[in-house]
């Protein structure tokens, strides 16, 4: 992986590794609650903010009237393991379809792939979470098929077996699927995809492609 | 360690505010112990037994001695094994949660103890053995009858009938009382020319001298360790140290330190458990106080045991084993 020489400005570099932001390890104090808000990889104790994992210290200012957020970033695969949380955007693969729900396996959380695949996290998309309108007229087989890759959002932690996922937004839904002839499908409309080879059309609940 | 109660945030705040001002929910001061009831000699079929009860915590301890061979690597010592069992009434759904339950059910467990409470009980037994039976309190050489040939195997079985805070303390008190109550029968080992050839199970000829056991309790010798240390557990609640916690206080305690103290107030072992870290200066203060508190506890125990009489079974009307 090539790292751009000037990715990190001079005044923010770590003194041992100039291509990275300052490196922190768990337990190092990185700020005070009066100056920063806690982001990912940070915990607060008695008014001070401490790092909770190994990574680069990143300070982001998103809103001018709020305090900047300090977080510990870990880029790439060496990053910390990801666990689905409420509100996270996940990519999941459909394993089973029933009239009222779709079972799937979660493959990545917020763009980070799940590293341990021995016992993957499971998710279900219930009938009422597929799309926000005309819920009583949904036919599951016209929205998803087994082995489709779906972009969904975690609605809740669900029960002991699976998380509850939802595709009830425009940019959520099937992102990649294979047609009955085995070739990739290309998105046409919100509810239709076309095989790249045979040009046959198949119904799916399609995610709006980002431009 | 084994706390069963879950407190609402308001109850927790009430408890913590009380501790900050130096008193607890049941009116005790931070250093006060609850009264204990100790009974000995309640299981006649064992060599020694005791039962310790205090406001819900109920521990039964039985000591059985067997004659066996000394271990191969230590031929002049006996064997003492401590075994703890938690009854099903202690663990709802048959699963024991290790660690304070104040952090909901998040816990760190050993790989093998995930499935049942067995691993946790085994750990408690090993911990008790380490804390209360160190070499300076118990000389295992005194348990040897004839080096390389015969030695006493002492099995201390502790049954936790009900846990309501202060479990390690109660268990160590029970073990101390039961071992004080134990008498080792007097044994005479036959001389060399009386040895018999004996066929053991795997066909190997092994010669062992015969031995004679005098079962009369008056002929026996008391157990060779009369000063088994007693554990005192202190919990850290909002930077204050609280002694002899009830189960509600245990679920509020961030960390717990258990100190084993002998009759002279000497600390012979220390062990920390719990979710938070403790400060070294606080720990030193705990060690100082532990000596004092432990001595008080042992004095009261000795006084009560003296009233019971030495080794003679107390004859009184028994209402039933589980009756108060």
């Amino acid at each position: 992986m090539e790292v751009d020489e000037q990715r990190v400005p001079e005044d923010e570099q770590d003194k041992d590794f100039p291509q990275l932001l300052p490196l922190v390890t768990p337990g190092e104090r990185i700020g005070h609650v009066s100056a920063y808000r806690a982001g990912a990889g940070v915990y607060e104790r008695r008014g001070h903010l401490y790092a909770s994992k190994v990574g680069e210290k990143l300070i982001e200012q998103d809103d001018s009237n709020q305090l900047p957020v300090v977080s510990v970033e870990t880029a790439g695969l060496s990053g910390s393991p990801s666990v689905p949380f409420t509100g996270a955007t996940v990519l999941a693969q459909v394993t089973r379809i029933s009239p009222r729900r779709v079972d799937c396996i979660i493959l990545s959380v917020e763009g980070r792939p799940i590293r341990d695949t021995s016992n993957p996290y499971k998710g279900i998309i219930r009938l009422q979470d597929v799309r926000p309108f005309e819920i009583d007229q949904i036919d599951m087989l016209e929205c998803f098929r087994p082995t489709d890759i779906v972009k969904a959002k975690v609605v809740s932690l669900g029960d002991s077996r699976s998380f509850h996922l939802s595709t009830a937004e425009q940019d959520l839904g099937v992102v990649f699927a294979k047609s009955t002839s085995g070739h990739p499908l290309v998105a046409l409309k919100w509810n239709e995809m076309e095989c790249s080879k045979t040009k046959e059309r198949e119904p799916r609940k399609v995610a709006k492609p980002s431009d | 360690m084994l706390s069963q109660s879950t407190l609402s945030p308001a109850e927790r705040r009430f408890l913590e505010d009380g501790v900050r001002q130096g008193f607890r929910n049941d009116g005790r001061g931070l250093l006060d112990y609850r009264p204990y009831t100790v009974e000995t000699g309640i299981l006649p079929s064992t060599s020694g037994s005791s039962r310790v009860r205090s406001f819900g915590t109920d521990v039964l301890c039985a000591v059985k001695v067997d004659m066996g061979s000394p271990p191969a690597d230590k031929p002049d010592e006996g064997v003492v094994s401590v075994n703890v069992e938690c009854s099903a009434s202690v663990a709802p759904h048959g699963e024991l949660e290790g660690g304070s339950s104040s952090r909901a059910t998040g816990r760190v467990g050993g790989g093998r103890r995930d499935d049942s409470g067995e691993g946790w009980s085994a750990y408690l037994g090993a911990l008790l053995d380490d804390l209360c039976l160190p070499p300076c309190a118990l000389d295992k050489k005194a348990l040897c009858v004839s080096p390389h040939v015969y030695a006493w195997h002492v099995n201390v079985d502790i049954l936790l009938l009900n846990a309501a805070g202060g479990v390690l303390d109660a268990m160590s008190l029970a073990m101390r009382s039961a071992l004080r109550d134990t008498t080792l029968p007097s044994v005479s080992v036959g001389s060399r020319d009386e040895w018999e050839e004996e066929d053991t199970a795997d066909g190997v000829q092994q010669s062992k001298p015969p031995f004679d056991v005098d079962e009369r309790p008056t002929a026996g010798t008391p157990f060779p360790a009369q000063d088994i240390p007693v554990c005192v557990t202190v919990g850290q609640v909002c930077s204050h140290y609280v002694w002899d916690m009830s189960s509600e206080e245990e679920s509020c305690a961030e960390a717990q330190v258990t100190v084993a103290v002998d009759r002279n107030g000497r600390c012979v072992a220390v062990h920390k458990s719990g979710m938070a870290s403790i400060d070294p200066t606080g720990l030193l203060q705990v060690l100082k106080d532990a000596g004092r508190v432990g001595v008080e506890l042992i004095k009261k125990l000795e006084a009560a045991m003296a009233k019971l009489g030495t080794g003679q079974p107390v004859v009184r009307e028994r209402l039933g084993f589980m009756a108060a």
Partner: protein
Amino acid sequence: MDAATYRPLPPDVPPAPTVSFGAAERSDGRTNEDVRDIEMQTGPISSAVGSAFFQIGKTKALSAVYGPRQSMRQARTSSSGAVNIDLKFAPFAVPSRTSMAERERYLVGMLSEAFESIILVERYAKSVIDITCIVLEDDGGVLSACFNAISLAAAHAGLEMTDIVTATSLYCMEVPSDTSQNVVYLSDLTAAEEACWLSSGQCTEMHVGIATSGSSICFLHGTGSLLNPTCAEQLLGRAEEICRAIGKEMRACLKAAYAASQNAAPAKTTATE
């Protein structure tokens, strides 16, 4: 016929353990306070999410972290995660082939209690994290070596922890000198020294785990007759020094490993070990 009449001898049979007093040295040439050489390495097991190898003297411990993954037990529905620690002695780790199950269980119980206060389990909802540790060779100080290996592996795996924690084992005993009984403080015993002093009860031992940023004690287990406040203070002070030194090395090791994974070149040509 005694089955155990042959056993491979270590290449150099060490002399009987002695304690250093005055100008004399311990049997392996160290002073009383010296800790044996330490070597640590992250990432030896590439299939695990995080792994670490820790060696002190000849004692070697290897730890790996798997997860977080979905909990297989259906009964578990909690907003907090669970961490399982498993410890095993390799069959060749100790000279005699005895069953180590009891000792393994005891160590696992103590390590689990210790790491309860360190890993932020509430950030891993509905998940279980498995940490395994294998002792490859036991030459004394196994508990602290495993503790350090697990701590390094967990940090390498990116598990959220409150601090880098390290552990060490310290001992003290009374040694008769010309005038009176003197208390001698020893750091880090080898297996031969442990066999000589610990089992007879002469020695007081204390295993301490310290959170290296704030010097608070996250793990403590001690047995012996010399646990009065004076000796305890000395032991804890020395423990803090040793743990901080190990912690500093661990942090450097973790930062170097992270930088290497990002293919970032170090600032100077001198290698940071």
